[in-house]
């Protein structure tokens, strides 16, 4: 920060967002520009970039070098993994999951989007919406990222023409809405020249909306909790067993959805035992109410058997437990996932044995066509799976709760993370997929 105000040092909110872009769309330049123009790049970092650019014979500092961290990437000029970037403005703190846009890195995009409140999809104004753009939109929709930004980049190369931006924005918005993306904001930018990234562009008077950074600063980061099912996965049971606290039994966890209050009737799943909340300890401070993403310790009126892996829910709003899960998955491991594969499934704080009963279909992201019974899913494939678990699990649909509707599959032999899973339907209705085998007349 070049200037310091007391405002800058006070508490602010945190936005986690992710980027996706095709190769050469200028994503690294956009991120570099964002960090540079928001004064988040410090002198020594910029000097290192200038040195590296000069040693490569480049005239101007290459802002993309700010974000390419590993030697392999610098040598090949590619981005091979998710990298996390941090910056702040007086209005908000940001965590950026910077994910490569190359076709074989679907899993990285899924990873970045899984914790993001907002996804930025980059297109080149000269090319408009391409196959990759549709893939990125589909991933944002599958992961149910609440906000999507379409950044139409390289506007300087199309003479800053409004008609070009408008046509791309319209085409993308129509497509993304069909997928069920809840909110789309299109912004015309030039990352290279700096138009509308941090500072408003003098070259695009016709655009009346916020700059990219202004939008990031003002997008809502909290949700209406009144429609959320309250869920607390128990991580750990705290029992001091000391002279001072002989009978203390606290159930520690991070609230995954909704809110809990003292006096509320709760049910423990999967056992189904019931009790009432007698106290909530918010990291050393007793509170009457606590809500999603707060790490708390809950005390109950009755001494019942609860352990790590259990789920505390309001008695009036308990999910059913099931041993049969249908989900959309993204396969993230190099070895394929096959029918009859024996795996471990981690849901919330519970890990159980499971078996892949069926892989009904694989989804092609480019055109959203379904390929029935592919037999296996390979790295970066998206598909539908049916899983049978060894024990009943209280799963929510991913549409209702990103934290209690998600799971990972783990290889029991070497611990590899195999698959990211989202319970329930793939997309917000109407289901916009075409079945290749039998087109049974989806009416869009």
């Amino acid at each position: 920060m070049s200037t310091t105000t007391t405002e800058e040092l006070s508490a602010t909110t945190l936005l986690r967002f992710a980027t996706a872009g095709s190769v050469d769309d200028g994503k690294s330049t956009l991120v570099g520009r964002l960090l540079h123009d928001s004064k988040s790049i410090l002198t020594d970092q910029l000097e290192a970039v200038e040195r590296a650019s000069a040693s490569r014979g480049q005239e101007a500092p290459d802002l993309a070098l700010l974000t390419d961290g590993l030697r392999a990437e610098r040598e090949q000029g590619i981005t091979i993994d998710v990298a996390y970037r941090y910056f702040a403005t007086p209005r908000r703190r940001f965590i950026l999951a910077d994910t490569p846009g190359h076709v074989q890195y679907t899993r990285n995009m899924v990873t970045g989007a899984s914790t993001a409140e907002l996804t930025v999809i980059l297109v080149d104004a000269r090319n408009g919406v391409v196959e990759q753009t549709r893939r990125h939109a589909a991933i944002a929709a599958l992961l149910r990222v609440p906000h999507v930004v379409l950044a139409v980049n390289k506007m300087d190369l199309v003479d800053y023409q409004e008609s070009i931006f408008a046509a791309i924005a319209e085409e993308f918005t129509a497509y993304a809405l069909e997928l069920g993306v809840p909110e789309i904001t299109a912004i015309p930018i030039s990352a290279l020249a700096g138009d509308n990234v941090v500072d408003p562009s003098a070259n695009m008077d016709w655009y009346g909306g916020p700059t990219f950074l202004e939008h990031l600063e003002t997008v809502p980061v909290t949700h209406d909790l009144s429609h959320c099912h309250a869920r607390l996965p128990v991580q750990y049971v705290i029992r001091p067993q000391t002279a001072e606290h002989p009978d203390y039994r606290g159930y520690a966890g991070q609230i995954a959805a909704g809110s809990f209050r003292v006096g509320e009737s709760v049910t423990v799943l999967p056992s189904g035992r019931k009790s009432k909340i007698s106290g909530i300890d918010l990291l050393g401070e007793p509170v009457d109410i606590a809500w999603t993403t707060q790490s708390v310790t809950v005390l109950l009126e009755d001494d019942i058997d609860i352990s790590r892996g259990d789920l505390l829910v309001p008695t009036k709003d308990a999910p059913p437990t099931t041993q049969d899960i249908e989900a959309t998955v993204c396969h993230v491991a190099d070895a394929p996932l096959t029918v009859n594969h024996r795996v471990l499934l981690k849901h919330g704080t519970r890990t159980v044995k499971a078996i892949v009963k069926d892989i009904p279909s694989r989804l092609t992201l480019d055109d959203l066509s379904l390929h029935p019974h592919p037999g296996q899913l390979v790295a970066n494939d998206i598909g539908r799976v049916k899983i049978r678990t060894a024990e009943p699990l209280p799963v929510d649909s991913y549409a209702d709760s990103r934290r209690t509707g998600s799971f990972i599959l783990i290889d029991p032999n070497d611990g590899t993370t195999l698959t990211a899973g989202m319970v329930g339907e793939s997309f917000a209705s109407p289901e916009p997929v075409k079945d290749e085998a039998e087109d049974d007349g989806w009416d869009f």
Partner: protein
Amino acid sequence: MTTTVATVKGGEDGTASPYALSHLDALESEAVHIFREVAGEFERPVILFSGGKDSIVMLHLALKAFAPAAIPFSLLHVDTGHNFPEVLEYRDRVVAAHGLRLHVASVQDYIDRGVLKERPDGTRNPLQTLPLTEKIQSEKFDAVFGGGRRDEEKARAKERVFSLRDEFSQWDPRRQRPELWNLYNGRHAPGEHVRVFPLSNWTELDVWQYIAREGIELPEIYFAHEREVFKRAGMWLTAGEWGGPKDGETVEKRLVRYRTVGDMSCTGAVDSDAVSLEQVITEIAASRLTERGATRADDKMSEAAMEDRKREGYF
């Protein structure tokens, strides 16, 4: 607190919603979640504790995560033999105050036994890797908490919260597991362990703001004080038996403080008159240098210095 759950309106007043967490609360909650996950899934976790501000914040978060019970972890300090006395004194005081168990892996021991050789430049930071990895093996630690933050350095930006290490403690960036939602995967083969970074998403400023908010006590060298220093490679280093000053280097008394605390041989002090947390935070917010850029010689060795050391098992 209202008794009805109101619809949260975001936008301009992002912090006005009763259900918005401040950035420090969000980071604190995430770190506590990470500590509790490890406690629930591992047999022998240990916290790397150097007495530096990041490890002090880690310990504070761990204490909060399990209160009113004791923390279910021990501490491990890799002692280079070139530590600041103020920091060692602080370390011992904290260990005693909380009734913790401290393991020490000593670089000096390895040098005395001839297993490690002193480098010509006197820097012992790269020598920490072997004592650390052998201690992890001999004590059979299966989870090792580090205070590393992704904002510190380019190679760290690629690091996971749960970072798998093989039996040689090696880090392979291509073998990293994707981390999805907040579902951490700590499974590992016998002999392997997981490095866990609860402060992954914190910045230097977040750490300082949290220290101020929580009223956490720090070693005195983080605040401005008079010290005998000399200039080497553009940094103010503390004069001492570890190898300085050499010919042509002159000692002078300056008002300085430390932004990071590591090995005396490679941790530089910055000119400062900040004597309170508030003054330190104001100074950091206005600084145009990263903390490592300003104060760490070991990271400047090459463009890929940190990446290379991480692969070998460094923190």
